[in-house]
């Protein structure tokens, strides 16, 4: 049977790639240390497959069809379309893991979840920027899971917890002997295309970190459901972290680092969840 060998979180932000050459040395150092730390921990876990939970930033989906959740079940996915990222992360195609993707999809449907599915997703900076900065080599096959957190209405935090539990169960019931890691990307607070852009809501970020460290999923969901409505639109990406939290068994996480990096418009955090046993 497959086993869950690690659950991680890493912020993302296009400015990290767009402005990489001109970022100040302290910002570059903080970003580099955070991603490299997650990358090293991930490589130490020796995953055969990496499940990445991230939003779609208007690449695969538009207002005419925008799923709350979408599971990538293809054998291949397309690399990032953003020119500013392509120049650093030259992966036009990334390997998927069709078997685990399909099993996650089947498990979801058998448990009354109704996600969308895709046999070929285009993986934007939300997926690929962490892969670039973490320096994984080789990059394991990926099962992408897209969560809608860019346009209302979005799935509730409670549903994201349920999705995490479902993901944990799906991984643990996959019949092949696979080592599976989960990476949630995005967050914490940021404001994109709206007033406050460039500011960081550090109070929101500190609350998030405390909730994830503590572990209690009920308080986590109820507090974030309320507070996320009062921070920037990018804060909604914390839903990916909620999925990861439950996938890891809601034992709480170890914060690797946090810095409110106005230069890249993101409350930038990295973490690893504790796993049961």
């Amino acid at each position, binding site marked *: 049977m497959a086993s869950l060998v690690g659950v991680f979180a890493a912020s993302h932000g296009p400015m990290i790639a767009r402005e990489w050459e001109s970022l100040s040395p302290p910002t570059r150092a903080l970003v580099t240390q955070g991603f490299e730390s997650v990358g090293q921990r991930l490589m130490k876990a020796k995953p055969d497959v990496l499940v990445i939970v991230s939003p779609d930033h208007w690449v695969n989906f538009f207002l005419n069809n925008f799923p709350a959740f979408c599971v990538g079940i293809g054998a291949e996915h397309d690399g990032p379309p953003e*020119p500013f990222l392509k120049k650093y992360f030259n992966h036009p195609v990334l390997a998927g893991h069709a078997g685990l993707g399909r099993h996650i999809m089947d498990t979801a449907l058998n448990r009354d979840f109704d996600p969308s599915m895709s046999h070929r997703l285009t993986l934007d900076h939300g997926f690929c920027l962490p892969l670039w900065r973490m320096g994984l080599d080789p990059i394991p096959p990926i099962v992408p899971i897209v969560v809608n957190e860019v*346009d*209302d209405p979005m799935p509730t935090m409670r549903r994201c917890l349920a999705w995490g539990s479902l993901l944990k169960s799906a991984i643990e019931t996959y019949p092949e002997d696979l080592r599976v890691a989960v990476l949630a990307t995005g967050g914490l607070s940021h404001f*994109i295309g709206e007033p406050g852009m460039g500011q960081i809501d550090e109070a929101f970020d500190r609350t998030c970190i405390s909730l994830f460290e503590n572990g209690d999923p009920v308080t986590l969901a109820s507090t974030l459901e309320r507070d996320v409505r009062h921070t*920037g639109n990018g804060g909604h990406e914390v839903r990916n972290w909620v999925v990861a939290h439950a996938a890891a068994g809601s034992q709480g996480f170890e914060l690797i680092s946090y810095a409110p990096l106005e230069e890249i418009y993101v409350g930038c955090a990295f973490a690893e969840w504790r796993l049961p046993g």
Partner: protein
Amino acid sequence: MRDYWLNKLFFDIQQPELAAQYKKDREAVVSRYPMSAELRRALLGDDIAGLAPHVNAYLLRFYFAICGMKDAEFIRRLNELPNTNKPNERVSRHG
């Protein structure tokens, strides 16, 4: 209230070919998207205050970046929008 076609233009313009056409002849591209005269004016006049209530904020950001507006100018204009509060005093528009 969202305007579907304004969002669609901003979504489509992520394609480099359309972005290039748009930079050459804005009005010709805009004419393919059935939106109100008021929105068309806001679009052609780079009127962020007129556009923001009708479009997803990410798409608004993408659009002005593609059009070449520097972030400092874009942020300055965003922060001049009516009813702009400090982050912890506001309610996100959720996109």
